[in-house]
């Protein structure tokens, strides 16, 4: 796993982590030692209440509202307005800020029922790859880059056929 980067400078690995819970929404802040010293925050010092507001003013993209799914392009703020996610990947991207919401709706944050084909775990890597390719396809068609589009289409096709093969074999195992 790649280390979490500092939310101020975006360069150094974050070594200091703050958590704030306000109105049932949990917010986290991860910063590096250098930035902490610069802002006058010792690793053991108290967290000024202003800090999160500071974050919102400074680098807005790092707050929950601006958290964006690289697959479908939806932001958490957009989701909050519409109440609908854009793609399955959002559940991974927004897992943190979504927690309190799921708690409110269901009184739970995780699934205990069936999974597809009686499997005990789900590997989302291929599906995720497909989502990314479809996004790239859309972008290249829009940019009138038809060579790329054709190549991506082929890639989608071969990936899809491998996916339905694995779906069929998964059934036999179950």
């Amino acid at each position, binding site marked *: 796993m790649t280390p979490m980067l500092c939310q101020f400078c975006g360069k150094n690995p974050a070594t200091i982590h703050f958590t704030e819970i306000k109105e049932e929404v949990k917010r986290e802040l991860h910063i590096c030692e250098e930035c902490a010293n610069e802002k006058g925050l010792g690793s053991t010092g108290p967290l000024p209440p202003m800090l999160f507001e500071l974050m919102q003013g400074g680098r807005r993209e790092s707050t929950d509202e601006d958290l964006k799914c690289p697959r479908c392009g939806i932001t958490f703020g957009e989701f909050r307005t519409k109440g609908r996610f854009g793609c399955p990947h959002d559940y991974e991207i927004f897992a943190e800020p979504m927690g309190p919401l799921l708690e409110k709706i269901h009184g739970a*944050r995780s699934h205990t029922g069936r999974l597809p084909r009686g499997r005990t775990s789900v590997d989302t890597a291929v599906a995720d790859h497909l989502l990314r390719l479809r996004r790239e396809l859309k972008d290249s068609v829009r940019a009138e880059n038809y060579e790329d589009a054709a190549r991506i289409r082929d890639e989608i096709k071969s990936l899809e056929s491998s996916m339905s093969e694995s779906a069929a074999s998964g059934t036999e195992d179950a």
Partner: protein
Amino acid sequence: MDLSDLDHRCGEWLRGEGTSAHVVISSRVRLARNLAGYPFATRAEEDQRGEITLRMREELSGIALGPRQYWVDLAQAEKLETRFLVERHLISRELESGRGPRGVAFGSDEILSVMINEEDHIRIQSIRAGLALEEAWQRAVRADRALEKHMEFAASNQFGYLTACPTNVGTGLRASVMLHLPALVHLKQIEKVFHAASRTGLTVRGFYGEGTMASGDLYQISNQITLGHTEEEILQSLSTMLPRILEYEEMCRAELASRGQLKLEDKVHRALAILRSARTLTSEEAMQYLSSVRLGHVMEILKDVDIRSLNELFVLTQPAHLQKLEGRALDPDERDIRRAAFVRSTLV
């Protein structure tokens, strides 16, 4: 697609038989599923939704949904036809009012239907007569498993089946029962049922689902929670709550009878007389008198009423059904005349 076979009769779930049919009209199970590797239908491009619709139409033709099966392309269907499908509970109002590539496949007995590109790519629905949640669940899950063989559904270990709206995530399961509760309404006790239901994580809706008014004293009660409980636990939560509502309705029916049997008989016979003789009937009137006659039938005040015909009238007297039968659009006044004539000819 020619749906004229369906004009004169309804799905088997309205047949008025089954467990606790004196109160429970039907039981329904709905499973929300999405194809992995695509954005959800609400955010997918039109051509992606087209791809999904085409593929699902093909896949669905390979699994048996009933004795015969229908596919309706809702992007092509006429407005009257889609309304007709809503009135029959084969599609949701959301799918009706949606745009672009979308469709529905269903069996001719109307037990199973699968909506494509509503809010989720796939919505499997199964309805059975009477209290039969387990049967409805089995039918829906069989279709679910048949589809699983050919495609990968969006799911994760932590969140289960992934859905466009977080209120459906996890099991994607919405189980509901349609109840006829005239005595609870009449004795103004229905609010208590709402409160009791919401305390146990259930919601109450009208005959045509979310946001619709309850008419004909018909109510749908369904689970609200889909995450953190197993499918069995969710079905169980409904099954545990139901006997208490049934008993309460029965108690109120007994109360109505003991307060004044003659008054009750008068109400029921008047309702039947109006349905058998009226020359115009609004939709609201029809639902209200049908409810009274149904109560009269289950309380054995009326002996010569066919329960299936009665149940079916709740659906067959809806606007799109009348217009489809007539083969043309009707204005509200014309509809009320056609409705009265149809009810008269059914309840001879």
